[in-house]
Structure formats: C-alpha cells, structure tokens
C-alpha cells in the first residue's frame, strides 16, 4: 500500500512524498514505515508506542480513529494511508 508522507515529515523519510509498504493492517503498515525510516518513529509515536494525538491517520478518505477496527483495520495493496499533520501557517 501507499503511505503519503506530508511535507513536514518528509525530512525524516528520505525526502519522499510517498512510501510503498507491504502490510495487512494499518498498524503493520506504520511498523513497516518506521522500520524503513526510524527517524519518523518519534514524530508519529509517543515513547510508550502510542500514536501521537496530533497525528491524524486516514485510510483512503476515512479517519482511522472512526474505523471499527481502528489501527487493526485490514488494508490491501490498493489502499492509501495518509498522515495528516497539524499545520498552522497563514501569513
């Protein structure tokens, strides 16, 4: 599946805007992503391994928080996972 990396985090993913991973669930996809790009881990997860509250994850156009299985939701190779960060610029 494709994981879209937002601009503020591309620095920690070798500058890539999208990363392809093989995974069966959202959680596995994130694990594969942070295995490949360890610098991303602290930006996505707390030290206890929980997803940070200001990081929004979307499986296709649905918020993972509202999926019945949440991060255990199954994924297929055609799915996309988007990491949506808070951005505040405007001036």
């Amino acid at each position, binding site marked *: 599946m494709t994981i879209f990396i937002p601009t*503020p985090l591309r*620095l920690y993913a070798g500058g890539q805007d999208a990363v392809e991973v093989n995974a069966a669930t959202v959680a596995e996809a994130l694990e594969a992503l942070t295995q490949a790009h360890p610098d991303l881990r602290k930006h996505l997860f707390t030290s206890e391994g929980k997803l940070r*509250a200001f990081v929004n994850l979307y499986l296709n*156009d649905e*918020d993972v928080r509202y999926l019945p299985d949440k991060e255990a939701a199954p994924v297929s190779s055609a799915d996309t996972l*988007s990491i949506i960060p808070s*951005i*505040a610029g*405007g*001036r």
Partner: protein
Amino acid sequence: MTTIAEPASLPELTTDDLSRYSRHLILPEVGMEGQQKLKAAKVLCVGTGGLGSPLALYLTAAGIGTLGLVDFDVVDASNLQRQIIHSTKDIGRKKLDSAEEKLLALNPAIHIVKHDTMLSSANALDIIKDYDIVADGTDNFPTRYLVNDACVLLGKPNAYGSIFRFEGQASVFATETGPCYRCLYPEPPPPGLVPSCAEGGVLGILPGLVGVIQATEVIKLILGKGESLIGRLLLVDALNMRFRELKLRKNPECPVCGEHPTVTKLIDYQQFCGFAPETAEEKTVKNGIPQITVKELKRRIDAGEDAYLIDVREPYEFQIAQIGGKLIPQNDVPNRLAEIDRDREVIVHCRSGARSQRIAEFLKQAGYPRVVNLAGGILAWSDEIDPSVQKY
C-alpha cells in the same frame, strides 16, 4: 446546507451596485437576493497576511457589506512575495492601513472595520460576536485554537485555511452540525515540531490558492448555495498539483463542540500549545542550556576569547547570511558529531535561536559538557550588532 442567520430585511441594491455586480446578478445562484445577502453580511478576516490578502480582496470585490480585519503587524519586505494586498511602498506601514487603502480603492462602498490588535482570549469574543462568519488566516497554533473555540462558543462558522511550504488545508469548522478544528486536531503538536512558514518557507502562490478557497466558502455560506466544505478537509498539494479530500466527523467527545463540553470559555492558548512565558531564569538558562546574548558573543570575539560557533541552519540559508561558525545543518548533526569538538564550549546558533536551542539540548544529551545557545540567533545579531547581516 448550513446558512447563516438572515437579517430581517435585506438592504436595497443601488444603481452602482447593479452595474458593479451584474455578473453576479445574472447567475441564478446569486441573483438580486444573493447579492443583497452579500451586502448585508459581516465577515471577519483574522490576519491580513498570506491568506488574508486574497480573502479580503475577493470578499471586497464580491460586495460583502462589512469586512472586519484583525492585525497588529506592519508590512515587511519579506511579506511581499505572497501578501498581495500590500505594495512595496507600504513597507513599514501598518498592515491594516495598507489593506484598507487597497480595499476601498477596489470597492469604496464596503464598510471596513479595523481591529488593530492581536486576537486574544481577552478580546476574541467581543470582536467576533458582531460578525456572521470568520475567515481564519492566522499563522500559529495558539491563535488557531483560540479562533476555533471562540467560533464554537459564539456559533459562528469558521472558513479555515492553513499552509506550509507547498501544502495547504481548507475546511469549514464550527457550524452547528459540523466538526470543529478540535475534532480534527484535539491536541496541538509540541512547540518546535512543526516549523512555521518563517522557518520552513512557503510558496508565495500557495496562500493565494488556499485563501481564495476560503473566500469561496464564505460566499457560499452567505448565499446558502452549493456544497460547503463542512465535514470535509481539502488538501492542496501545489508541488504535484493534486487536490484530495478527507472526511471529517464531529467528535462526540470533542472538549469544545462535543456532547459534554469541558471548554466552556476561552482558555490560555499559549499555555495550551505548550508555550510558557519566558521566565527571568530562562533568559539565562533554558532547559538546562545557558543562553548567550549576541552582545556577549560580540564582546568575546572582540576580546579574542574562545567563541566556537556551530551553525545548524540549511545550506541555502547559509548563502543568505552568515555570522561565522561551522555549518552543520540540524538534521546532519547526529551523524557529524565527530566534527564538533567536545573539549571546547560549543555555541550553537541558527536564524532565530529556536532550532539551535533544540540542537544544543541534543548535544548536551550526547555528552557535550559545555553547550550554549545564541539567544535570538542571526536576527538578533543583525538587529543589535551588525545591520549589514541580511535578515530573512
């Protein structure tokens, strides 16, 4: 679709109005009544910068009756790459005055209300209550949460837009049935994790794209036509020119717009976003890192004392301005520790002193016994020591 409360009677259109807005009047979705609604509407633009410029210009052109502007800033040369309401001659002038002049030149019939202040918990409700819709064109997390909460508490829709580098977001928050900003982002990121436009840069055109989307949403809310961005987050990627949208849901547990709100009045948003006011001690030692002023650094250099500088900016910044020191961009520091002498006091510096503080903390953790941060960075050096050093 959600519309704003309509006034009891709509204002008449003048002969001038009829000719000025003729292309609106012949659109069935606007027509006479729609144009009268626009004339009756009161919209508040928070910020007259990157997003606020196109917002205010298009809303004025469209015939919004009353446009409020909130800003406290003055025009700087570095604004002109994107803040198209301001001109070169306006450098140094209050943004409010500069914006008012352009807007009245475009449409003299519009009523401009200038709020020459920084929006705060003390004044936000009082300012926003007189408007129908808010368009948030601010540039920092505390103000984003402040605008959101004030809009939810007052029941005013918020046409939201934000930008970073090549990426933008837009939505409509705080309508009666739709989600609010906190439903999407319950908590702000810790300070320093997400760089500001001043640190990260922004494509000048991007606020134009996103601000015009906000203005479109404002107009649609007033007209009560079309499908608004309520419950949708529009993502703009200008570099690849892709627009995507995500579903947003109203969070029943949202602390401000949920079923059992815990935020029922405005709070301290600086504190909420992790920005504690700088204490007297932090001026000398911050998070265990001694702070050196630019004046002290200058004294040391002049006195021939040890002044071992590490510059943690990016190479393209180094090309713009330098005050000396070895360039090791912040993200390269972990891999290039061998190049930083452990036996000397390391003075870390950057543009403003924010990145260098983080790297100084990192070096201390990595076992460097003496690490200090140059408070205020190159900007302070340019202000206080050598104005010939280019600010950016």
